[in-house]
């Protein structure tokens, strides 16, 4: 209780002194009195440990969070378009994390690119075949 009241924001004294804050002031004073009264009453029962103790154990009654289960309402092949729209909204997130699907695998791409590069280089470098054609012009 004491810890909580300390954390609670309190109005400055000058504001509480104002005429229209009279009722609030009375209320706050009453609250403080209550807190101190309680502390005196239960001081032999409430230990410091009870005020500060925190647990590392979080109880969870449901399997959904333990086993990471999906939502149980599903529709496939256009049986219920409304549900399928909701399902589509949720799925793209999962796809982003995975590797994207490819029509051409990495190895085939590398092979083809190498082939392409060598062909290109051959055509760009002047050879004895394309040099004479320039001369003709």
């Amino acid at each position: 209780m004491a810890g909580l009241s300390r954390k609670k924001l309190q109005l400055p004294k000058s504001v509480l002194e104002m005429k229209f804050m009279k009722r609030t002031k009375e209320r706050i004073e009453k609250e403080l009195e209550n807190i101190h009264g309680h502390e005196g009453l239960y001081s032999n029962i409430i230990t410091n440990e009870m005020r500060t103790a925190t647990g590392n154990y979080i109880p969870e009654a449901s399997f959904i969070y333990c086993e990471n289960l999906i939502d149980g309402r599903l529709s496939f092949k256009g049986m219920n378009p409304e549900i399928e729209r909701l399902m589509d909204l949720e799925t793209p997130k999962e796809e982003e994390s995975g590797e994207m699907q490819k029509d051409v695998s990495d190895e085939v791409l590398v092979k083809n690119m190498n082939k392409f590069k060598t062909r290109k280089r051959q055509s760009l470098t002047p050879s004895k075949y394309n040099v004479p054609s320039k001369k003709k012009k």
Partner: protein
Amino acid sequence: MKASVGDVVLPGDYCEEISAVGEKAKVIIGPGLQKEIDHVYVTKAGILKKRNPNTYWVDNYQKRYIPARGENVIGVVVQKAGDIFRVDVGSSTTAALSYLSFEGATKKNKPDVQIGDVVYAKMLVASKDMEPELVCVDSHGKKGRMGVLSDGFVFKCSLNLIRKILNPHCPLLESLKNEWPFELAAGMNGRIWIKANTMRETIALGNAILGAEYLSDEEIKSMCTNIATILAGHVS
């Protein structure tokens, strides 16, 4: 008796591994585990499981549903009592479903729900000592996937089967979803509602789900292709 992850455990066993982790970091203890002063005790008979980060639970066979907050369930409306519906979800008592917890419902505009209707709803309050409470809207007031389930067919099964088919790694729905159009609602309380275009398809779907309970992933896949070929008329 001491138990570790992966063991078959009985009520009264305790797991020192969880206590050791709990000294340093946050631990989520799921169904079947209970923290007492000295140890984390097992309260159900099953297999102790772990998933990272620091989540422990007991995987047990069970058919009786115990309400848990946040779970989606299938219930049958059994009574209209003033401003709530009483819904049978298979737990020890009926659950309360307020008529205001439907999308767009107001005091004047009541939702059209009759006794005997099947509803797909979320557990909002599930306490040991109180009547469970259901809602048919999410926190934004939208109905989402919840609401009254019309037509279709409802059957019961064990709670384990529900968890099995809703597991993201389960191949059952993955292999059925491209075969024929169907709709499905699986409640965590061990009830499944299915709907397909024809009776043959509905029965096939129901058999596929019920047949999957004790099969391995590979067996589920072959069973699904079997059912699909029979349904397509290739084999009579």
